[in-house]
């Protein structure tokens, strides 16, 4: 249940609201108490301020409040809707001061209330809020009769400018006279222009017998659309409901509301803390979910790494049993196969040469040379392709070769024709050897040289052959033959 203390000039009423609505409460309230005053001392004052910002504007208004209401701390201000541009809304210049100049009464009442006070709202201000409804005219009398009294609030352009509480009997004629009296005052102070137009009146009471009298006085009754179908039994209840929402216009000093505001702040803090925790969990949820997935994957990876390491260790253990480094073994096998086993035997080449010379048993070898040539080494003193302009062999095409060269001695008794025939036979036999490349041919040298006889011949003529054969057993010399000069 929420509690509201209603203070009128003559009485003090404690009301409570639960699921069944508002009802009078006797005894002590159990919770915060909202206070609504309905006193004669309530008043409004419109002021215009210079264009000030922030704390300057607040200080200026505070000084104005202290000037207008020097004897009461129950004062506040409202900022009505501003006309003009954005700067007008940011730094408003029109304000409504309101105060309740009954400090002693209010202090006494609030001191007598054992529970914390949520705030004090003048009923004039609540009526003004009610009259600011968009469906109502901008200039409006809000009238609320009470037993023996009449509260009149006038709004000009939806801004409260005047409030009165008069001792008026509950008679239609007297109430209308009081409204007319208030209107005249407004006309005299030039708040309202004089004229014959009808003035709208929102009457918060039973209107039986009033409409005719009001119409005669150029007062036009208007209705609040939301209460038109089912008006409340007591028009104070809508005002009480409004007060429970703690609207702007609260007039009690901060010291009176400390406990209530602290409780509100505590509650808001706890709610906000819960929201932040939930938001934090929600925000971190995705990351936490990813973390869980990655941790699972990390465990699987660790397991895989351990398994592979175990297998590597097992393989290394097996290798260790053979007491040999795999790299050394690989090198040894490569060395053996590439450098020793693959080299063709010299015997074979000697036999091939012997076979080529076997056609003439009178021939004698003077000098025979057999040597392995490393890849890229030019055989038989051949000119470098770079100097002759010939195309160099493709990279990687060079292979090890065997160079065989020999010098032949022909018997002295051979005539020129026999010599040529013998040399041609030998060259022919050599060229018939598979994969042999003949680089120097004595027959060719003889054909392009001079024919000599006597001691001069033997000194100047050298019968020399030089050839290459594949240096790797089982490999043909085709590539080399194709690139020979």
């Amino acid at each position, binding site marked *: 249940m929420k509690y509201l203390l209603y203070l009128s000039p003559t009485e003090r009423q404690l009301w409570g609201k639960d699921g069944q609505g508002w009802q009078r409460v006797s005894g002590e309230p159990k919770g915060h108490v909202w206070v609504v005053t309905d006193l004669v001392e309530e008043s409004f004052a419109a002021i215009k301020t210079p264009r000030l910002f922030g704390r300057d504007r607040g200080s200026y208004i505070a000084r104005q409040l202290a000037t207008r209401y020097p004897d009461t701390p129950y004062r506040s201000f409202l900022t009505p809707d501003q006309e003009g541009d954005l700067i007008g809304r940011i730094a408003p210049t029109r304000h409504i001061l309101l105060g309740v100049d009954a400090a002693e009464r209010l202090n006494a009442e609030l001191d007598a209330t054992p529970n914390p006070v949520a705030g004090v709202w003048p009923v004039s201000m609540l009526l003004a809020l009610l009259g600011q409804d968009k469906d109502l005219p901008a200039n409006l009398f809000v009238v609320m009769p009470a037993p023996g009294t009449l509260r009149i609030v006038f709004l000009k352009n939806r801004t409260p400018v005047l409030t009165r509480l008069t001792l008026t009997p509950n008679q239609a004629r007297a109430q209308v006279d009081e409204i007319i009296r208030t209107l005249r005052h407004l006309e005299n102070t030039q708040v309202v222009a004089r004229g014959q137009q009808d003035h709208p009146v929102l009457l918060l009471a039973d209107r039986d017998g009033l409409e005719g009298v009001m119409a005669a006085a150029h007062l036009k009754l208007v209705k609040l659309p939301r209460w038109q179908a089912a008006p409340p039994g007591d028009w104070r209840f809508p005002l009480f409901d409004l007060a429970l929402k703690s609207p702007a216009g609260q007039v009690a000093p901060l010291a009176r509301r400390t*406990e209530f505001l602290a409780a509100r702040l*505590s509650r808001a803090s706890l709610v906000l*803390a819960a929201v932040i925790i939930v938001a934090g969990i929600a925000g971190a949820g995705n990351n*936490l979910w990813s*973390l869980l997935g990655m941790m699972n994957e990390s465990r699987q990876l660790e397991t895989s*790494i351990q398994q592979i390491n175990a297998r590597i260790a097992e393989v290394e253990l097996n290798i260790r049993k053979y007491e*040999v*480094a795999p790299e050394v073994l690989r090198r040894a096998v490569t060395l053996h196969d590439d450098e020793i086993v693959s080299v063709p035997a010299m015997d074979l080449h*000697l036999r091939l040469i012997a076979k080529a010379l076997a056609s003439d048993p009178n021939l004698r070898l003077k000098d025979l040379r057999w040597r392995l040539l490393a890849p890229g080494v030019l055989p038989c003193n051949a000119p470098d392709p770079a100097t002759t302009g010939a195309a160099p062999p493709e990279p990687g095409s060079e292979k090890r070769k065997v160079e065989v060269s020999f010098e032949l001695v022909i018997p002295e008794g051979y005539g020129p024709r026999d010599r040529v025939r013998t040399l041609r036979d030998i060259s022919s036999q050599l060229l018939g050897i598979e994969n042999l490349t003949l680089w120097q041919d004595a027959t060719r040298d003889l054909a392009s040289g001079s024919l000599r006889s006597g001691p001069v011949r033997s000194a100047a003529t050298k019968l020399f052959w030089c050839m290459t054969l594949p240096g790797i057993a089982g490999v043909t010399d085709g590539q080399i033959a194709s690139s020979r000069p």
Partner: protein
Amino acid sequence: MISALSIFQRARRPLNVLAGAIFLSLTLVFGSIYGRDTLRNSLAQSRSQLDALRPDLTAKQQDLRNVQAHIEQFRAFRAQGLVGLPDREGWVEQLVASREQVLLPDSLSYVLKPPQAMTDATIPESAAASAAKPDAPATHDLDFELGGVHEQELLDFLHDYRAKVHGRFRVQTCQLRATPTGLLTQCTLRFFSLPEAAKPPGT
């Protein structure tokens, strides 16, 4: 101002709870981001480690298969002197012994040159790479000269030498020149040796 302070003092505990909630939420959010990023980096490292280990395992398995396939051949290399410390003294002693064995004239002279890192391998790239290593294969050229022999005697001599010497070689060059007393042969035999410095892991 005092009243405002009083409000905050009265609501101190819930405000502390709010501050704790903010701290907890921020810790949760930024901690989870930090943890996620850290674990992501760790995962990337683990993946790269695993990616590096797989070819390593494959290479080791290939090494094992290679060792199993060639171990007998390798042991034979050890026994023949291709692998291990080169028996340079034995090579020249056997040269003399083989000359005597095939009954050649006492005209043998020889020079065993210092070992050289291999530079004329069949595959130049591997030769260059292996020459840079301390346990690279080495060559030893043994030059010998023998006079008054016949071609067949030379071949028999080389066959005998190849069969008995504690080492593996190839004939690198051979020159046969006719002289009045027979052939003068000048040959170079190239021995190969492979130091067994590299040990298998763990030994």
